[in-house]
């Protein structure tokens, strides 16, 4: 209340001064425009997809198919790419903490898991991340509605509403979520993150909104020549991911929960 009053005072008192300033700024703007001009040309050369201006719709459902046969042992390209894309590599261990404890407290959006079949001894490598369920338990349990599913199938956290209760982490069957345990600095413009909130893989939501084709992890995997991670629209029958799903025998992790995940695995 008080602030609004103050703003009113401010505005009436300063109209005169502002006028003077504007004249001055007008002159400055001319100079500025001259400086800007070269940049305009530069920009015109860089083709950029239009950012989204219409709300996301349920006409698409983003998802991943992971072919574990192609996932290489010891390769962490997807993890590194995700960390860089989302600024997770900027998190630093608080001074006095032990490395071991930090490993349990730092945020991880995607991780490599190596499995061995108890019966046959067969080894499988795969990346694990948020499985983007159609019926996400994390969304069900969130008291404030901060954990939500976007119309295009991406399960994410609205950090403005997250109070840091961590109930979603209790509920997630995939251990996909991380809590930010420490103060952060130097966050990326495209991925705001901060202490006291829960976060997880959001299928590079900012890339979706700027019309890019893929996710950081899928790109990195392709760049390594593995192509184990394929990103795409599960609802588009002609998309590569839909074709793959038709060809490969895939399954969901913890199929028993019938969550209809958006991430499918072949060869598990």
């Amino acid at each position: 209340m008080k602030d609004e009053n103050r703003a009113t005072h401010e505005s009436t008192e300063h109209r005169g001064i502002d006028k003077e300033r504007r004249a001055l700024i007008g002159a400055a703007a001319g100079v500025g425009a001259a400086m800007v001009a070269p940049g305009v040309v530069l920009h015109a050369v860089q083709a950029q997809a239009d950012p989204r201006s219409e709300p996301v719709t349920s006409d698409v459902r983003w998802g991943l198919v992971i072919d574990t046969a192609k996932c290489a042992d010891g390769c962490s390209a997807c993890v590194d790419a995700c960390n860089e894309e989302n600024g997770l590599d900027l998190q630093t261990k608080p001074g006095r903490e032990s490395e071991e404890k930090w490993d349990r407290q730092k945020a991880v959006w995607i991780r490599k898991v190596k499995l061995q079949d108890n019966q046959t001894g067969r080894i499988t490598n795969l990346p694990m991340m948020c499985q983007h369920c159609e019926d996400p338990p994390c969304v069900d349990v969130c008291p404030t509605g901060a954990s939500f599913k976007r119309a295009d199938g991406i399960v994410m956290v609205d950090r403005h509403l997250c109070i840091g209760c961590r109930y979603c982490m209790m509920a997630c069957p995939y251990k996909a979520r991380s809590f930010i345990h420490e103060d952060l600095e130097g966050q990326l413009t495209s991925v705001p993150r901060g202490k006291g909130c829960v976060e997880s893989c959001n299928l590079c939501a900012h890339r979706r909104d700027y019309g890019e084709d893929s996710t950081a992890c899928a790109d990195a995997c392709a760049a390594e020549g593995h192509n184990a991670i394929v990103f795409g629209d599960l609802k588009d029958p002609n998309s590569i991911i839909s074709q793959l799903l038709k060809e490969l025998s895939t399954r969901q992790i913890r199929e028993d929960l019938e969550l209809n995940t958006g991430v499918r695995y072949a060869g598990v």
Partner: protein
Amino acid sequence: MMKRIVYREWRIPPARYWSILGILAAVIGIGTLSFGYMEHQGHWVTGMNNAVVWGTPHVFAVFLIIAASGALNIASIGTVFRKPIYKPLGRLSGLLAVALLMGGLLILVTDLGRPERLIVAMTHYNFSSIFAWNIFLYTGFMIIVIAYLWTMADRMGGPFNRPVGILALLWRLALTTGTGSIFGFLVARDAYDAAILGPMFVVLSFAYGLAVFMLVLMFTFADEGRVIGPKILRRLKNLLGVFVAGSLYFMLIYHLTNLYGAKYDGFETWLLTHGGIYTFAFWVGCVLVGGLLPLWIIYHPEKSKERNWIAAAAALVILGGLSTMYVVIIGSQAYPMPLFPGQTILESGFGDGVGGQAASYWPSIPEFLLGMGGVGVAMLITAVGVRVLQFLPESLADEVVPVDEETMGEAAFVKPA
């Protein structure tokens, strides 16, 4: 025939009263400092991590919250089930319910990652979340119990006493079931995903609430030299015995169900045989300290008549309750999630239980102090309440307390045929 029950403020000497308040204020102060430290630094200063996301503060908070609903039982027995002997205890029962709930909620709130956003929790509700429902259950409980206290204390409230009492009873059952269901509806973890957790929490709450109530009653009475007659003490300790036995029974069923279903075999064998601290907390904490020892005292022919032993039994139930919460809340999270049945995880970048190993958690000092701060708040509210208002009956001596069907029975036996 029945004497009127007179309620009086707690009139211990001021020096003693203020030193009790001083100690409680210090405990709360330390809790507040721990809260400030945890919030300023972030949760990395706690033992909590991405695998064990709820830790010691939640052990204290959940214990206090269910003890709160349990503490109200005494009032319900008096009003709803019409046992006159419990009537004089109704006011203290209501006060304790409010105080314990306040303490528990404060811990929950101060452990949030963004406690300053509590207003968001009050303005944005997701009604598919049991947690959101619980926010209503807790605030509603507080209001109903305060109204209930009014009906007990004010002449005008008399006619509403029973209806409000019935509402309070139903509400507290919903509240405890809701609290249990916070865990019971989690399909993700083997230890949860069991509807029995709801009713089990109700029975646990009976025991914890009564144990806290008995300790507070005995302490306040002893400190001022008020009398608790053997009759009412016997009733209370017998009731505690039934509740403790009931808790053990429900725990037995819960674990047997898990053992029976092959799906949760792994969790049970881990918890019951090689879960380290959790196995210890289960067998020694829940079963021995919280169950068998109190039962032994309560039903011991000699010891069950001694006040100090009865108080010890109540204290053991509380200790056992805290260990039970430790096992139910932390142990269940520490056990790795069953992501890949039939496979062993050899390596993982996120501690997925490599080789079936449990997640590591060790409580830090600030966490523990935060929990103690909540206990301090509950005790402070109680201490101030009984001091300034008439919550405590002047005497609970045998000749003062209302007759009840038990003594009527005795009289019937004594009467010559």
